[in-house]
């Protein structure tokens, strides 16, 4: 892979969620790419297909459903939609990792956080025993958990929401992925913690040169985080633009409507 090449090229990706009773065409053909080290935001309202797009790249289906995929997802010289499930498992967590929306439920409540991170290290890097433990503590330190050597044996319920999200991020970056997909990583957190988590993601991305796919419904989150934004609506990308451009001159009327939905201080016509 070239240093400035595209790490992910998605062409005409379609995803239909098939459940027992109905089929929903959630993603109706999206095309985009992400360069090595680049941050790209995906913004849209609930149900616009942004999370399904992310899961389609990792070939994850919501439980109890099947997702029919179409198009191509080129990653590391291969089309992820055609590789075997076993190869896909090797890619998940090691080459592409994901941070989920709800840190309160995304960790196994009966296993210590250290053991949960160790699981992934053992799975993908073969690290185990003392070396794995050292690495876990190092990772916890990197995501800003205070006293990592002491916290490593704590259970998830002993951590606050923000700290749990840091643990999830530690899990995601544990195997040095090329691409980190963050699906509404701050939605479940309160505002001050949101800012800390976003700064952490930004710092980790810069330190490791990984690409970031940031999914959110909140323009306030992508501002200052990403270079480019894809605005999604109804299963399609309706606008793609640089971050400055989109705030200055949104082209699509849906983008304008979304931007207007962000509360701002000193907006004309709104008295404080």
């Amino acid at each position, binding site marked *: 892979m070239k240093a400035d090449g595209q790490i992910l090229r998605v062409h005409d990706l379609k995803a239909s969620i098939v459940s027992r009773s109905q089929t929903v065409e959630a993603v109706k053909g999206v095309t985009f790419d992400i360069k090595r080290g680049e941050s790209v935001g995906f913004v849209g309202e609930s149900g616009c297909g942004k999370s399904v797009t992310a899961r389609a790249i*990792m070939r*994850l289906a919501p*439980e*109890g459903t099947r997702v029919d995929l179409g198009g191509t997802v080129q990653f590391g010289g291969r089309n992820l939609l055609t590789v075997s499930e076993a190869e896909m*498992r*090797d*890619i*998940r*967590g*090691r080459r592409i*990792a*994901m941070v*989920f929306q*709800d840190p309160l*439920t*995304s*960790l*196994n*409540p*009966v*296993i210590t956080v250290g053991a949960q991170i160790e*699981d*992934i290290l053992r*799975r*993908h890097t073969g690290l185990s025993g003392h070396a794995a433990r050292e690495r876990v503590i190092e990772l916890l330190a990197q995501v800003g958990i205070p006293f990592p050597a002491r916290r490593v044996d704590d259970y998830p319920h002993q951590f606050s929401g923000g700290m749990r999200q840091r643990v*999830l991020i530690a*899990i*995601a970056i544990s195997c040095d992925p090329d691409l980190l997909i963050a699906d509404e990583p701050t939605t479940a957190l309160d505002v001050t913690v949101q800012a800390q988590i976003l700064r952490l993601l930004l710092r980790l991305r810069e330190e490791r040169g990984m690409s970031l796919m940031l999914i959110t419904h909140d323009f306030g989150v992508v501002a200052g985080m990403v270079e480019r934004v894809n605005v999604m609506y109804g299963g399609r990308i309706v606008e793609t633009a640089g971050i400055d451009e989109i705030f200055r001159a949104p082209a699509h009327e849906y983008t304008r409507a979304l931007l207007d939905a962000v509360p701002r201080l000193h907006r004309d016509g709104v008295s404080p």
Partner: protein
Amino acid sequence: MSEAATTNEPAIAGSRSAVARRARPSAGRLLLGLGLAMLAILVLVTLLAPLIAPYDPSATSPNSLEGSSPQHWLGTDAIGRDVLSRILIGGRTTLFVTFTSVAFALVAGLVLGLVSGYVGSWVDEAIMRVLDVVFAFPVFLLAIAVVAALGPTVPNLILTIAIVYTPAMSRVVRAPVLSVKKWDHVEAARSVGMSEFRIVIRHVLPMVVSPIVVATSLTLAQTIFTVTALSFLGLGPPPPDPNWGGMLADARQFMELAPLTVVGPAVAIVFATLTFIVLANGLREVLDVGSDR
């Protein structure tokens, strides 16, 4: 002490439900403790039976159908065997059959329930429909049919009872798996490349342990009853080795002459059954099975 009392006061006066919540776990612990104590007695007596039994359980004597005496605390049966010794030794057979068959049913139920609940779709349908067929038979009818076909030996009895209780165990396992598999941490585990087998073992199974533990204890209570009932009907282990159900059957015709020959094994059966019911209720309270938390 007085300090502690005053700091406790607001919490107690706070609300009725707060008091109830504080009181409940300790009641559950008490029940669990009682259950464990009863289980300890049951297990110890059973294991040490050959040492503490005063007579050879199969040794006959001319003194048949005697009442309680210093030599025979619970009297003797129709052919002069010591009832107490037979209860102690007979418990070994009855409890061995009970524990082993429930263990088999538990293992089968775990495998079938986990596969059925986790994999879902047609696999779930296929497994559950087959189990439904087994489930549809009345327990005793099925047990009698299998034992009658295969012969009344201890291994056959164990196999039969394991088959009879497998559907119920599978359902107890399957139900919570259906919801746990949708939890976020399962998807999170999948998103880092964990294999489905490992997800089931590490991220699904630990979440469903509590209801399974409670159900196992209740099944043990039911199984003791089933084992003794089958033995009573003559489908248990063959004589002369004693077992509780068989003893009841033998003593039935002499119960007016020697009530102790019936009361003895009956009390043993009730005690063993009660042990597992008390244990199950204690476990249910302490593990908080069946509430929202």
